[in-house]
């Protein structure tokens, strides 16, 4: 019988909305105010994301060091579909300026505004001229031909063009590019820790986490490090880094996503190369290897030889199996099979199959063949939650934690799951 996954769907077209991307790009930039030209509910969705992100930070025993900026909605209603929503938007912009005295306003357009064809650009220009407050607009409208990252990068681009100015370089300074939960998130903290071992200082995280007043300083950084990822977000951040290099001579590191031990090693070596401190990189690596080994010695007595199944349903753009396969090898787990879930369209299954086979000689199965394999496994590592109460599952996240701390956390999740006397259950690492 085939294994089944919980809350399973395959994303056919656009999966996300560009408005939260706009919001997130400036969410913690003191002096900014975001206006959604949308029904009020769209802003509530962004607020839901905001609350979830805040409590996730708290769950990691961290606390945001400062709060998010005001988020307003023009509160479009059914009548606006007939008469247009620009008058409503103009009132909302005026209110935002008079109430919050922002240094900059950002407008995100909803799909509704896109369908009715509101000329947001003209309203923004008029209000900007009248109040002398910069207003940034974007072309993307909600989910229409755009995704989350389209909103994020369009506004990032405009911030760069409008507010970043050439200035003297600050010696041994680094600018982090990207989000990943901000300066208090796992990624930025781990990268900052390693960069400190190289004797360089992080002077900001762009976009999203620098005050509007600080933006001029973006060009002061000697180096930029992209908080990488996969897919479009990474491509966009790389473009930002390229621009910083071209315009301000900022050296950057972009192409390595330090998930798993191999990538972490490559990342540290590349940082050393970028900073011209290759010898120091070897010392840093040694320390990191030591940290990893200490933890491995603790995990191996439990993990070695345990029957493990890997279930993959995510497309290659968002999930490369190489990292988790390496973790499996480091923990000396006994990988008995890999199951490709029924979520792939067209060539995506073939692409994943090819990469899996390049990285492992373990047999690959379909969901139809998978039930017995899962039933016999001590642990299942999976990109999709399975509808199986008996299986001990480790949910492989879309944004895995990075470097040695991230690798140890993944290993710890597997170790704790194998130690658990509870039957089944899902562990989110």
């Amino acid at each position: 019988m085939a294994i089944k996954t919980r809350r399973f769907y395959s994303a056919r077209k656009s999966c996300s909305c560009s408005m939260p991307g706009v919001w997130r790009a400036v969410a913690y930039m003191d002096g900014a105010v975001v206006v959604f030209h949308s029904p009020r509910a769209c802003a509530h969705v962004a607020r839901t994301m905001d609350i979830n992100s805040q409590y996730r930070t708290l769950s990691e025993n961290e606390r945001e060091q400062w709060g998010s900026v005001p988020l307003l909605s023009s509160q479009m209603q059914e009548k606006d579909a007939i008469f247009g929503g620009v008058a409503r938007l103009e009132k909302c912009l005026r209110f935002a300026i008079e109430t919050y005295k922002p240094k900059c306003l950002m407008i995100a357009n909803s799909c509704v505004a896109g369908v009715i064809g509101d000329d947001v650009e003209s309203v923004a220009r008029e209000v900007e001229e009248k109040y002398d407050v910069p207003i940034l607009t974007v072309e993307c409208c909600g989910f229409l031909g755009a995704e989350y990252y389209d909103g994020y990068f369009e506004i990032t681009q405009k911030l760069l063009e409008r507010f970043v100015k050439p200035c003297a370089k600050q010696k041994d300074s680094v600018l982090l590019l990207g989000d990943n939960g901000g300066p208090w998130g796992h990624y930025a903290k781990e990268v900052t820790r390693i960069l400190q071992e190289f004797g360089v200082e992080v002077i900001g995280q762009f976009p999203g986490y620098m005050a509007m007043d600080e933006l001029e300083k973006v060009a002061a950084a000697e180096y930029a490090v992209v908080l990488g990822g996969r897919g479009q977000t990474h491509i966009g951040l790389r473009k930002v880094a390229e621009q910083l290099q071209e315009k301000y001579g900022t050296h950057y590191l972009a192409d390595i996503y330090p998930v798993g031990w191999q990538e972490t090693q490559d990342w540290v070596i590349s940082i050393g190369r970028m900073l011209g401190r290759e010898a120091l990189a070897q010392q840093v690596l040694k320390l990191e290897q030591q940290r990893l080994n200490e933890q491995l010695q603790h995990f191996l007595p439990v993990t070695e030889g345990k029957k493990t199944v890997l279930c993959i349903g995510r497309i290659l753009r968002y999930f490369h199996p190489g990292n988790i396969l390496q973790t499996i090898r480091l923990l000396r787990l006994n990988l008995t099979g890999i199951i490709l879930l029924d979520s792939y369209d067209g060539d995506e299954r073939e692409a994943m199959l090819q990469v899996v086979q390049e990285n492992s000689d373990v047999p690959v199965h379909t969901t139809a063949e998978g039930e017995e394999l899962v039933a016999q496994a001590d642990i299942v590592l999976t990109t999709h939650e399975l509808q199986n109460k008996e299986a001990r599952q480790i949910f492989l996240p879309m944004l895995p934690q990075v470097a040695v701390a991230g690798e140890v956390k993944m290993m710890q999740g597997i170790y704790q799951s194998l130690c658990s006397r509870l039957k089944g259950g899902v562990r989110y690492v």
Partner: protein
Amino acid sequence: MSEKQGWGNICERVDTCALTGAGAFFAAIDKSEVLINGPLWCYFYALRHLEKARPDMYTRFYGSQPDNNAVIYGSEEYVTQELQRMLEDGHKPSVLLLESSCSLSLIGDDLAGMARKLQLPFPVVTLDSGGMVGGFAEGYAKAAKKLFAQLLPQTAMAKPLAVNILGQSEFYLQGAADTQEIKRLLQLAGYEVLCTPGCECTLEELQRLPEASLNIVTNAELGLPLAEYLHKKYGTPYVFAGLPYGVQGTLRWLQQIDAQLPAPAMDKVTAEAQAQDNYLLSRNNEAIALWGSMWFDNVLVSAPATQALCLAQTLRTEWTDIGRLTVICQQLKDEPACDTAEAIYTVGVDDAAISEYFKTCDNVLLLTSSSESSVLYRRKQCSFDACNICYPTNDEVFITKQPMVGLQGSAYMLERLWNCFIRRKKNKV
């Protein structure tokens, strides 16, 4: 309400989308299914909200996932494809809600026509929904009235002592438990409860709605539009009773209903109330003997309007002493009187005052959602404790189904308040 006053920061409000509200009304109908004709993003956020009360909601909640071409060429292809998949998979829901998100609503697709073409072997209710309609309550009411118009009998004979409870949702925090307690109390008083729309009901029960002699409205934002519709269509009288918090509050609540439709067994409720009162008094005295009288310097109650006002009224008259009580109503409606609060604010009307409250409050007990806690976490230097009474509830886990209303609910709420009081005392040491 002036336009200027209504724009306030979304981060200080709580709501979801009409798409979610409409889905929630139908999701509460036994064996119903919902198909969202809208982007995956809107579908997913609605689903995540509904999963709070029904973790298996994904098994009967689907999305058509149209792309941006659908707003030009129509979404028929996507809707038909999903409906055909349902047919092929052998789905036979008691009723299907087919609703469009806001942008898809604007293009005027004939959803009913699409369903008719496929000759679906089950009833289908179609709706243009989404954020343009409003928030959760507006979507809930619009969906309910559409179903009433389509699937209720044209006429009916009123049965003596038969009542409906209008204004409940199992997708409000502890909504199902609250509804069961209200139903239990009414049945104890000798009424026959025909139906509880929005909460654990069947289509057959909904079709008996017009047989009631009296409709009892609890949450105004959900129930009043339904009561008004049923009054207009069938002449059924209604009473806006609000929510029965506390022992005396429950008796007062029941007396309002008794005044409209005399209860044959009021004495049974009075006897149970007396017994509960005695029990709570003894438990209260025991707690006072050890911890001193319960006292909170400041309390904020923020929730959907009826809930906020009814709870605030009981809070100060039955459960605890308070220095200053502030109430924030999340909707503007005709509400029950509340004379116990120092300040009552309404979002969209008193946004500046609400903002000021969040900036200055301290040493406060929050009877709110995690959204308000989130605002105060960010403020830092603000001492507060949270006792969530509505969604979202990120900083508290709810597993047991306990009513907050009625005689049973009065014990649960008193227990939670005492535990907050004790926790605050311990934290001061």
